[in-house]
């Protein structure tokens, strides 16, 4: 068993000529990228789908932050929104319904040199993926997680999601959905180690971009709920909010988002909110009309799981060998008849 010979291997299956291991830990030079460097294919979302806006925003972000496409990974679950990685010319992982976060965590822990983004639907994140969501907040690994919240199951054709408002008629709730909507923000803000929570809407591109950018710059698990339109199944759902700028509440603060004049002119309902105040954040998060938009909470002091756990020692052959031999020693019976007793 220990000497099985894999005689069909001809370099086809095994990695060839690996570079120095440092290459996966350091990015030594500056690069310049264009928007096209991040674009791939024609998105297959419905016209007017809010996912398009989110895609545009993250592509811009990648360009502006000059993220090397090969060092960037977009991870998603399953749903319309989870198709996003397919339209990014970076690495991508379109995983399983509900499981984007644990996949992303595995990537991050293995490779802290990679930038990780996560895109999830509301069913994906808040229904089937809810346990992972809660725990991802607690792990606080450095990644940017976007909840594309369209209040509906898009891909599977209009079933109620946890964030569907009560009374919404869907294919599984023909007489209207039965429960008050889950509020992803208050849930997130209830979890220990929460370090960044924001909310934004897909129809204000500038804010969308700014929010994702702030999330990207946060060190830790940055959670953004993007209220996203699904014109296919809920064509008029957000209409009233879009038409009436006073139904959006702009949160701003010197440590939060900075609202420029243009936005301030249109979205007159504004509130100064210090993102370090979690109690106030929870109160604001509880409101849904007007929709609070901006950074609800930020705490830069929360340690990241991968930092706590990452071992910076180079895992050389001799490190492994010595460690292994030391372990063997603990269990070895030597031919000379006595265990080698070491008292330590």
């Amino acid at each position, binding site marked *: 068993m220990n000497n099985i010979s894999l005689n069909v291997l001809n370099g*086809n299956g095994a990695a060839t000529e690996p570079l120095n291991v440092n290459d996966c830990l350091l990015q030594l030079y500056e690069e310049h990228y264009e928007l096209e460097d991040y674009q791939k294919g024609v998105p297959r979302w419905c016209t007017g789908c809010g996912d398009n806006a989110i895609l545009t925003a993250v592509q811009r972000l990648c360009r502006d932050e000059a993220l090397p496409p090969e060092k960037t990974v977009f991870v998603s679950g399953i749903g319309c929104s989870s198709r996003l990685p397919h339209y990014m010319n970076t690495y*991508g992982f379109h995983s399983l319904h509900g499981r984007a976060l644990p996949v992303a965590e595995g990537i991050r822990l293995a490779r802290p040199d990679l930038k990780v983004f996560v895109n999830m639907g509301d069913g994906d994140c808040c229904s089937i993926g809810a346990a992972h969501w809660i725990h991802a907040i607690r792990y606080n690994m450095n990644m940017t997680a976007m909840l594309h919240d369209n209040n509906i199951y898009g891909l599977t054709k209009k079933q109620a999601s946890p964030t569907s408002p009560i009374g919404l008629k869907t294919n599984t709730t023909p007489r209207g959905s039965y429960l008050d909507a889950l509020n992803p923000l208050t849930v997130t803000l209830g979890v220990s180690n929460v370090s960044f929570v924001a909310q934004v809407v897909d129809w204000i591109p500038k804010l969308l971009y700014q929010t994702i950018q702030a999330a990207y710059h946060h060190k830790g698990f940055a959670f953004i709920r993007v209220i996203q339109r699904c014109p296919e199944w809920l064509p008029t759902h957000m209409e009233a909010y879009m038409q009436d700028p006073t139904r959006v509440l702009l949160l701003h603060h010197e440590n939060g988002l900075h609202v420029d004049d243009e936005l301030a002119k249109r979205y007159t309902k504004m509130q100064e909110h210090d993102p370090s105040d979690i109690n106030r954040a929870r109160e604001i998060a509880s409101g849904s009309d007007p929709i609070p938009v901006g950074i609800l909470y930020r705490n830069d002091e929360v340690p990241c799981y991968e930092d706590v756990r990452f071992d910076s020692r180079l895992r050389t052959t001799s490190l492994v060998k010595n460690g292994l031999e030391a372990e063997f020693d603990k269990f070895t019976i030597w031919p000379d008849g006595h265990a080698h007793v070491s008292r330590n």
Partner: protein
Amino acid sequence: MMEVEELTKVKKEKTNGHGVPATGMGPSAYMGKVTRLNEHLVEIISDSGEGAQKCGQSFGSIVAQMGLGVWTTEIIPAEIRPPARSVAGASGNRIRFGSKRVTNGGNETDLVIAFNEQVLLGRVRSKELKPGCTILLESMWRDDKRVAKSYTDAVEQLISAGYKVYEIPMDKECRKIVSDPRKGKNMFALGVLCGLYSLDLQSARDQVVLTFGKKAAKVIESNIALLDAGYAWADANLDFKYEIPAEKSTEPQIVVNGNTALALGVLASGMEICAMYPITPATSASHYLSDAFEEVGGIVHQAEDEIAACCFAIGASYAGKCTVTITSGPGYSLKQEAIGLAVMGEIPLVVVNVMRGGPSTGQPTKTEQGDLMTTIFGSHGDAPKVVIAPATIEDCFYSMITARKIAETFNMVVVILTDANLASSQQPFKRPVFDEGWLAPPIDQSAIPPGAKPYDWDPKTGLARRFIPGQPGGMHTLTGLAHDENSHVAYDPEINQRSMRARSLKLATLQKTLNPPPIFGDPTGDMLVIGWGSTKGAIEEAVELLRQEGKKVSSLHLTFIQPLPPGIKEILAGFKKCITIENNWSDSPNDEMIDGSNRRYSALAILLRSRYLVDIDCWSECRGTPLKPNTVRRVIEEAMA
């Protein structure tokens, strides 16, 4: 199978380097009979928390140290803390040791040392003790009014049932040394056993030092005193002694259980991450690994559940660090969807399933081989994966290295199927000699040549080179959806056929690299017994015995179960009858409702019958205990009749 030779020994100070050395406590006071044996099966049982497990493990190490062959098996109660003195509460260890290599836990117990009569009765009831065997029983209960009657009744019954009962005032003797004998009795018992089996006292002392190595010197000293006292007590008070000739190994040996061997294999394979969720009986591998990884820079990640653990492992593997996830039945069932993703995405992944009694929560602490079919056929759609079942503790170590290598070479999921029997049994094996080739190569971060595709399936073998994040030019989106060579989502019928083929073909490609499995015994005969996994030792022992009696029986043990190695058809052809013997469920052909049209066969029998169209019979049981050589022997005899 035990040859007994009696000899009387007068003040015999050393025998084959055993016996009591001059140092420490003077020459042995023993004047009685010494019986020479080939092997013996000893059991130490107590309420849980009284240290019988530690006593047994130490005893196992000492006899191994002496050069004897040994196999230790844990006796684990199902509850964390069953009530004291309860029939179902026995906690302890069985140590089978002998002059020759011992390959399994053996049959019924020859000698038992019990801390109360209730746990003893539990063992009698479960038929684990040999009728008439020797019993050493703590006698303190005679003086405890509340239980004296129960105790004396039990002793009487056992004696009249033919057991040889020796009462030992362990509590009283220990009180001479420590104030709380509950915490010291186990070392006293160890001393008694060492005395009885004429073991080297100094080795025993060394072992005590090892066992309590991290404790204060005072603790170690009092435990050594207890050991010495037990040794002396046996010499002074018992009228029998055994001696088992040993032959020292010339090579260093490792003594660990299967779970520790697995964990050492993880280290040796160069894997750096293990993602898991606790579950009996798999967890102890992760416990050990959590500790050991600190030395070499690896991480055990305890995820929020098994699904997360598997997905976490998949993420890490995708990112270039082939990862292992360790679980048992219920967790394995939960991972099915994620395993399918790894198969579809062709992500290398090592999954360990330490099987326990099923179905459902079943018998968490008991052994079974019930998960083979779900391992091969689990996950919806066609999800081909490699399945390897280690047969020995040593296999547990090496299989991890093999698994990692196959996983990364073929970009496949490799499942290692062990069980509670291997997980908690100890058997010495040759200390492995470190080989650089064991380790995973560093992560490939070279640029991808233009035009190369992430699923460039080789038309002959199905293999493709994997792209790892960080490789310039290799950007693509891995997906669990049907996809083409570029990893683009594709629902084209031809593409689906092509990609299904590539994933399936890799198994055939791997199969071509395997050797036919060795036959134990002659290549032709009346009966071929076929087994897999942890039952190897018991099956081969039974076959060996029957062969010695002139029966034309051989056995075949499979380690690779998917793909099955080549050459099996030819082997089967050499035998008149074939039967699989497994530790899982099959309907008995003797049951009233059962006939050929509805009998449910054992897992391996189904696989072999289907592939080779040979009328392979099966016999199996689900008793939660390792198969006994005697049982196997009886089954073979009946099947040959």
